[in-house]
């Protein structure tokens, strides 16, 4: 149950259906599941049941899901803290999410790391380190390895925020991808804030996508509140990269509809901003679109909601029953070559 689902078996897998409404529906359902799951964890957080921070993707699920759903087995995805929708679409099981947030020993990070810092690198899902921008060059290296190994038509997607574009690491990795002509898709979610900091303290270019030309890569802009646009633009960018078009630089605009983390009331976000087009909730917009297009009727959508809640409740219930990590069973070994690990002799040989 834990771990990654083969994408073909994932309940709402995108497949490569030519039926756009089918893709849209699947994407919507991942977004919905992510939203429900994150709301559940947030409510557990408010109830004091979560250790550490909780970070949610509210308002940018469309961008995230469009990234995850465009990827296939063999591709690589480096999500960030707000990518629950994309993770699910890429194949991360809900249990990896709940087990990690709830600190179960059986989670993929075994209690060693927590919350958003999880992944299954063997299956192409990278466990982020916190340092912003640092995952991009790692994806470059994985794509370089694919090239060495003769694996063709794989793609690597990297998620980044507006704030992270100020890091030197961002600059070095997108430039490296350009020089090596790697099939890298960089999806920048400009949600207008980096923690409390508005974008005008991060950059002053007229449009973030203006950076693409300076790296010699293809730039794309997309309305991140519009799932159809995201699926098309990000899906298209992924396909272009897959077909040998080199690095793709996507800037998607949205508004962070939550605090930086659940500890943060985001009082600094001007209420007027929430009233603008940017402040639209991509999930409601997508739901309305499905209904208006008659891609599903209200009863079906209602059932999807119920199903998401059921899945989340089950995953949480299961995870709460799991054992916490036991320090006595921990091997305290940071090396794969166990015989080279140092440690115990530096401590007094305690008898306990």
């Amino acid at each position: 149950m834990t771990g990654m689902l083969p994408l073909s078996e994932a309940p709402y897998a995108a497949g490569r259906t030519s039926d756009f409404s089918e893709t849209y529906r699947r994407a919507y359902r991942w977004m919905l599941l992510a939203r429900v799951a994150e709301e559940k964890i947030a409510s557990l957080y408010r109830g004091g049941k979560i250790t550490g921070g909780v970070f949610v993707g509210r308002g940018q699920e469309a961008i995230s899901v469009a990234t995850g759903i465009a990827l296939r087995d063999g591709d690589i995805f480096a999500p960030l803290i707000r990518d629950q929708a994309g993770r699910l679409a890429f194949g991360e099981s809900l249990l990896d999410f709940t087990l990690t947030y709830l600190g179960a020993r059986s989670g993929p990070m075994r209690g060693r790391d927590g919350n958003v810092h999880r992944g299954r690198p063997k299956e192409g899902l990278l466990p982020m380190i916190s340092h912003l921008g640092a995952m991009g060059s790692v994806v470059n290296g994985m794509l370089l390895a694919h090239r060495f190994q003769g694996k063709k038509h794989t793609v690597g997607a990297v998620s980044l925020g507006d704030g992270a574009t100020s890091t030197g690491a961002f600059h070095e990795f997108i430039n490296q991808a350009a020089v090596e002509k790697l099939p890298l898709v960089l999806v920048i979610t400009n949600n207008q804030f980096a923690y409390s900091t508005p974008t005008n303290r991060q950059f002053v270019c007229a449009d973030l996508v203006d950076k693409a030309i300076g790296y010699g890569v293809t730039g794309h802009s997309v309305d991140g509140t519009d799932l159809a646009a995201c699926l098309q633009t990000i899906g298209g960018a992924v396909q272009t990269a897959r077909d040998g078009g080199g690095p793709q630089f996507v800037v998607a605009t949205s508004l962070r509809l939550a605090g930086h983390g659940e500890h943060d009331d985001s009082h600094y976000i001007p209420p007027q901003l929430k009233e603008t087009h940017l402040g639209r909730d991509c999930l409601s917009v997508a739901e309305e679109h499905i209904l208006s297009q008659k891609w599903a009727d209200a009863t079906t959508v209602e059932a999807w909601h119920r199903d998401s809640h059921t899945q989340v409740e089950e995953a949480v219930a299961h995870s709460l029953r799991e054992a916490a990590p036991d320090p006595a069973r921990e091997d305290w070994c940071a090396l794969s070559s166990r015989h080279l690990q140092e440690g115990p002799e530096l401590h007094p040989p305690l008898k306990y």
Partner: protein
Amino acid sequence: MITYLEAIREAQSEALEKDPRVYIYGQDIGNFGGAFKATKNLAQRFPGRVLDSPISEDAMMGSAIGAAMQGMRPIVEMQFADFSTVGFNQIVNQAATLFWRSGVSCPITVRLPSGGTPGSGPFHSQSLEAIYAHYPGLIILTPATVEDAYSMLLEAVAIEDPVIFCEHKYLYYHLKAPSLPKEALPVGKARIARAGRDATVVTYSAMVHEALAAADELATEGWEIEVIDLRSIKPLDTDTVLASVARTGRILAVGEAWPWGGVTAEVLARVATEGFNLLDAPPMRLNSKDTPVPFHPNLWGTHRPTARTISLALRELLRA
């Protein structure tokens, strides 16, 4: 009562108030008041002097160095000590070498919210004091008390050299004092946090409190443990340590950081070379385990030294 965090805020407020050369630079420190609220209301009270930086640790550090060279007294807040690794080069190669190379001093203060708290995980828990102490040209302060958080931060701003100010996040809200001090030991002097005659624990920062708790526990068994709070780990007050060992004959060095080349290694190397004949028993050390800092509280509580493991080590030391 004033907390350790409030003391840090108060010191910054006072520095801004008294010295027009002081400004603060860091992520989310302006109107928002910082991730930990260490600069709450300061941007409002000192307009234009508490600046939000982009997420550019290298440029944050570089610009502070430049401003210092031109006569300012910048305080840089790293959001977490762990993120200073991306501003590392400017600290260790630009700031730390400037005076020695050019004769121009570099009075910057880099605030590193350091150390572990439950649930913070591998990248929001690090204790990097030993990393910075290895480089010449830096001063490394590690306040363990509310009083020191306040007075040492003020002193850091006054010092002509780059100061790495390792403030411990675990103490931010936990630790309280009735008031702020009027005077303090100078930087470079260690403090006897508790006097004793049977063994010396040398430590710093949050571990001082674990050591004091261990000393309390051993006191119930009749042992008198001396606890030394190093306060600054570079310079390191070898004299005070040696004087204590001269009295007790036994030493345990405790640090929350990783073992290899940490403060405990440096302390014991100094005691062994300079105070060998003062020792009645082999010295001991206790550090965190040699893995990244774990996220889960169960693991975290075992990864770092605690009052319990310090007591166990002390009992062994006293038996030796």
